[in-house]
């Protein structure tokens, strides 16, 4: 039996405010994807309207997350720079494609299709990856 003691401590805790703003993009962009699918299937325009607002919300809160990730990247130590860069890059790609998606959703009626569907799927996926990478920093690590 090993005598090594095990200590757990957070590697890189997110600031609570950072965690809160990062909590928005995934559900909002995922909601936009679902309501796009609903519009695609039913032609009921209200789903497309929902998507527009969900994307606007994702962009609003996502913008703060992008800024925070940028600050973290600039302040990161050499050991954590790679992860910080991946986190920032993913969020930035999510925001940029999300903005294009907002412009696509500003077209009238079914003119948003099929681009809206594809973009919403990609943006939701990027939001998932960004949240995964961002929140991974909280996970406890094993040190001896």
């Amino acid at each position: 039996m090993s005598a090594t003691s095990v200590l757990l401590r957070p590697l890189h805790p997110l600031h609570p405010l950072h965690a809160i703003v990062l909590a928005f993009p995934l559900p909002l962009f995922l909601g936009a994807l679902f309501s796009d699918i609903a519009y695609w299937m039913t032609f009921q325009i209200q789903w497309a309207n929902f998507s527009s607002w969900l994307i606007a919300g994702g962009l609003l809160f996502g913008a703060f997350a992008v800024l925070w990730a940028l600050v973290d990247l600039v302040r990161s130590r050499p050991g954590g720079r790679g992860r910080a860069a991946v986190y920032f890059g993913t969020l930035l790609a999510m925001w940029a494609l999300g903005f294009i998606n907002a412009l696509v959703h500003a077209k009238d009626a079914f003119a948003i299709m099929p681009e809206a569907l594809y973009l919403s799927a990609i943006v939701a996926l990027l939001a998932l990856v960004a949240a995964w990478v961002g929140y991974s920093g909280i996970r406890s690590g094993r040190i001896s």
Partner: protein
Amino acid sequence: MRAAILLGIAAVALAACDSEPGSSPLGESPRLPDPRRGLLPEMTIPRPAGWGSERPTVPEGYRIEAIATDLRIPRQTLVLPNGDILVAEGSGGNAPALRPKDIIAGYIKSMGKSSVPGGNRLTLLRDADGDGTYEVRRVFADNLNAPYGLALVNGSLYVANQDALVRFDYREGQTEASGPPALVTNLPSQINHHWTKALAASPDGRHLYVGIGSNSNITERGMEAEVNRAMVWEIDARTGAHRPYATGLRNPTALTIQPGTDKLWAVVNERDEIGPDLVPDYLTSVQEGGFYGWPYSYWGQNVDDRVRPQDPEKVAAAIRPDYALGSHVAALGVAFSSEAMGARFADGVFVGEHGSWNRAEPVGYKVVFVPFRDGRPTGEPVDVVTGFLNGEGNARGRPVGVTLDPRGALIIADDLSNTVWRLTPAR
């Protein structure tokens, strides 16, 4: 100061190709390009500049005078039998913003409009001594609701408010209505994305025709919002009973009866955001029971892919309009001419073009004459009153309603400079 804003730059850069200015399809058989749109719609909003000491440009042998200024959004006019002119003043619509786009686009478009609140009234102008100066100005009727279409028949003055058709009794010489109007019938007014209610009366006075615009550009407020929209109603003047007379007319902004044939004609504003040269606004005779395409198709059988569900049967039934006025010109006024306007403009119609927003290079912003032969429009439209855009691309004014004064004048409402203009052949 660079007052004309060009939001189209990004859109043009993103779009595959640019448009040739002035290539908008015209006439009886326009050649239409394929629909296209970049990430942003092309937008150029000429900013209000005012006339100052300038006035509109007119052809050699004609003169133009402002006969009333400082009005409150004059839209349509009516020349009464004694020569008095009634001006409908108002601004309607109560469409809520449903998307972020509606808020942004609404703000941008408002920069090209007058900031004066609509008058909700009829103003009477009188030139008692016939010298061309309208020295009497009275409020004929007040407390109306965005009045637009006007018609006088059999001693009844009909006014199409944005929510109801109403009737005043009219005696010649009156400068003020004798009381509040009577209701003929309510008109569709939910949302009122296109709020203007155009009006024409059949010559026998039995029927009234009211143009009711669509509740969206292209069904983006849902199909349910389009019930009883994008059509012309025929209304029984006595009972108020009504039925759709013709449908599929996206925004019939002015109606008139052709002298001699007693046929109903309309100018109609077509859909936006599928390119600078689509879809042509048009002038057409209105066939009873006819379907003119909106929303499913345009200019006959050109399917609009933005509409779901589609309707191939309606597309097949769609009537091709008579005459393309050009895309995005925003025709808001139409009047048949007569020999009183001089030989050049004796046979045809005048059309007031309010001017474009959905085009990098603005079009419209003028009054044109469409020549007729054998009762049909033919040939290219001729510029009659221009100069509404100044050299910097800003708007001195924007023409709306045009009305023929049978004594030999064209009355033009300008809802940006809040002026009524009078064009006459010089004698």
